[in-house]
């Protein structure tokens, strides 16, 4: 259940138009800014202005460059950060929800469960019960290793689970953010 996202067939990008490295460098700046402040709101106009790209082209360019739409990327960073806080701190789950950028505890709990397969509370308990030895790896890379790999949209994943199928992955490649 927990790793189900990873079971989705990988869609290999073929014949993607090669993007100008100068554009990619500017798109990377938007990605970096989301990384640095994933708790903040990142509407397309804000991201587009960081990258110096028109709003109309930003989401498509970002997805071509990084393989997923900007707001799904932001979601992975928020889950990653809330996971770290669940493991490494004693902060109440409500506080973690708001600290990591969710508008409500309900949205946080539901999204966290959809992405990771368990509730925030269950995740915290399971993690505490296991030993870990990642102290030698820089903390940011440890966190990155725990970033969810969201190949499909969360809404798509919900639908697949409701249908009991996992065949809708081709739709994910055409999905608009």
């Amino acid at each position, binding site marked *: 259940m927990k790793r189900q996202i990873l079971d989705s067939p990988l869609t290999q990008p073929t014949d993607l138009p090669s993007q100008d490295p100068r554009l990619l460098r500017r798109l*990377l700046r938007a990605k970096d800014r989301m990384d640095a402040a994933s708790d903040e709101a990142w509407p397309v106009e804000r991201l587009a202005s960081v990258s110096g790209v028109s709003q109309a082209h930003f989401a498509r360019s970002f997805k071509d*460059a990084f393989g997923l739409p900007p707001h799904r990327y932001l979601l992975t960073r928020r889950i990653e950060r809330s996971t770290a806080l669940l493991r490494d701190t004693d902060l109440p789950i409500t506080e973690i929800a708001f600290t990591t950028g969710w508008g409500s505890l309900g949205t946080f709990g539901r999204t966290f469960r959809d992405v990771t397969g368990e509730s925030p509370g269950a995740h915290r308990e399971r993690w505490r019960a296991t030993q870990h030895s990642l102290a030698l790896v820089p903390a940011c890379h440890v966190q990155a290793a725990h970033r969810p790999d969201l190949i499909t949209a969360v809404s798509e994943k919900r639908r697949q689970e409701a249908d009991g199928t996992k065949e809708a992955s081709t739709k994910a490649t055409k999905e608009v953010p």
Partner: protein
Amino acid sequence: MNQGIEVVGVYVDNQDEALEFYVGKLGFRVHTDVRNGDYRWLTVQHPEQPSFQLGLFVPGAPMQDAATAQQLRALVAKGAMPPLVLAVSDCRAMHAQWAAKGVEFTQEPVERYGSVDAGFRDPAGNGWKLIQSRG
């Protein structure tokens, strides 16, 4: 002779710009800068680490064909190259000094378990971690 790793290179999109960044902003020193036609072998050194050279290389002829070079440039610009780590004695001071010089920081200094780290990128897109170890 001493045995060990002597040169490790990163790809950059523009060697003049990279030189200005690593030497002009970060305070590295040029170790070797030689040209042969369009090819330029450029390495820099951390001032406190004379046995190691960081190569600043541009993708392209004669090492790569044009399509491969374009892919490498794209990978660097997307930040897809491996992480680089610079050990410093005072992360916050280094951050303040380099930010004032216009270094593009991607992460402000953060203390974690007693060590302090920050993140920045070179103009090409290579990502560095600036780490001040505990103690």
